[in-house]
């Protein structure tokens, strides 16, 4: 029993890591649900990697990395939107171009600077075990902002996931609320890069929400489930990291991914036990007879 609790009671850095990680889990659970339902996985992935040059430049100039991450994601979201609107290229082509361009730029900046090698590992994989009080406060503020946006805008977001046309028809411009959703993803990525790192934050956005999507029948329960699964991943990952001397961020993300595949197996088994759907209510050929 002690092995499950003691590491957090006896080590201040472990308690901080747990608190910071849990806050990230909540933000990622809420935003990840929107990412999964709205099909924004690719832009989420691109954002989490594309912030690298922003962070690198900020660190080189002596500014906080978080500021550089904010500028980097703003450049990406603005650039992708502009390119999609002004060219006939599809949205994912635009995302891909900015993704590789920004990542390459980040690597070049980092490789030109001799003082950077240790910092790069920190940016990519986070430094959860060295997280400070200030970091936790910034994360908590951002998570409160994300929760508030998810609550206040739940109707436009639901309409947008359901049909952008219906969002427009209801008086909620789809472009505006799509932009707000992207800003929420960016904010999550920006504040999470210190905990799990830019490489792994995407896993925390996707895996718990995807696992929760297998069972949830309401969007609010999907968000709550994703946050809970994320929290379990943080706790279990940190414990594994402590006892087996593993990299904390990677242990957490791997736990989240394993939880997804476990949930997937359970949902397959449950479906098999339920048997085929009852006739009349769920048969795909039910009442869609050919028009006379």
């Amino acid at each position: 029993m002690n092995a499950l609790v003691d590491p957090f009671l006896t080590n201040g850095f472990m308690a901080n890591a747990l608190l910071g990680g849990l806050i990230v889990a909540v933000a990622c659970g809420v935003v990840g649900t929107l990412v999964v339902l709205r099909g924004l996985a690719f832009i989420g992935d691109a954002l989490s990697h594309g912030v690298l040059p922003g962070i690198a430049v900020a660190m080189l100039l002596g500014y906080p990395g978080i500021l550089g991450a904010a500028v980097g994601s703003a450049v990406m979201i603005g650039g992708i939107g502009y390119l999609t609107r002004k060219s006939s290229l599809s949205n994912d082509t635009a995302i891909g171009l900015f993704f590789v361009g920004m990542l390459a730029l980040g690597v070049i900046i980092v490789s030109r600077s001799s003082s950077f090698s240790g910092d790069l590992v920190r940016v990519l994989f986070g430094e959860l075990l060295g997280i400070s009080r200030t970091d936790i406060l910034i994360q908590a503020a951002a998570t409160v902002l994300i929760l508030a946006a998810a609550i206040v805008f739940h109707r436009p977001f639901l309409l947008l996931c359901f049909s952008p046309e219906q969002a427009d028809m209801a008086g909620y411009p789809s472009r505006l609320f799509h932009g707000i959703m992207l800003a929420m993803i960016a904010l999550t990525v920006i504040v999470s890069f210190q905990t799990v790192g830019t490489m792994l934050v995407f896993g925390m956005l996707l895996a718990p929400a995807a696992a929760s999507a297998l069972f949830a029948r309401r969007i609010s329960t999907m968000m709550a489930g994703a946050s809970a699964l994320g929290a379990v991943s943080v706790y279990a990952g940190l414990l594994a990291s402590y006892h087996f001397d593993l990299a904390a961020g990677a242990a957490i993300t791997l736990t989240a991914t394993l939880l997804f595949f476990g949930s997937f197996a359970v949902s397959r088994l449950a479906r098999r036990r339920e048997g085929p759907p009852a006739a009349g209510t769920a048969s795909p050929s039910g009442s869609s007879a050919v028009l006379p």
Partner: protein
Amino acid sequence: MSGAVTGGAVPVLAAGRLSVGYGRKAVVEGIELELGRGATLALVGANGSGKSTLLKTMAGLLPALAGSMKVFGGRPGRNPSRVAYLGQFHSNQLMLPLRALDVVRMARYPTLGLMRRATAEDERMVREAMERMGIGGLAREPLSGLSGGQRQRVHIAQALARGAELLLLDEPEANLDAESKETLLSAVRAAVQAGGTVVIATHDIKEASRCDQAMLLAQRVVAYGPGCSVLTPDTLLSTFGVTARMEEGRVVVVEREHRHECGE
């Protein structure tokens, strides 16, 4: 009833020298129309004829390329709670954790705003629309578990539950069997009786002929006027490149190039 506006009343829909299309490419040009309260307009045409483009312009989802399009005397899209629109394609919704009831409830969002709780009246309108479309019993079923026809009825119920004064329906009969189609038509009639105005893009010539007005489209306005008089073999031939008539108890199909008979 001709559907045109008489006296000084503001028409529900009015278009003058209207061009509709996507981007800069016009699909139909020179559209003139006027529709008053309680009137029905059928848009008839083959795929790609401009029916959906015109409907989307009425809904405010597409800007008018030229000319004017007024809804309730103002810009389209300005009155979310007064207009309901049923689109043709419903993609990417099956993975949403939504029940049929949740989908129909979305119809009340423009009235409720961001945070206000639904009232008993909102719930009554939602229930009534679902009952009307014969899906009251499916309210708690997940959307992903419904058949194509059942899902279409959920979408139609969503449009009805808005309690809108203007209903814009893009091929609402798609995926519906004969019985559900009757249910749809009686729902449309009830909406009209309650003073609603309905524009319906359809392939159903018989139903279109019963509308106050019909507009035949083939990337241009082929004909526009009272439904019973504009749907003639000649206008249908120009619209679809094919038409049919009854001759001695047999359906005779007439095509643009030549004519041949088909049994039954």
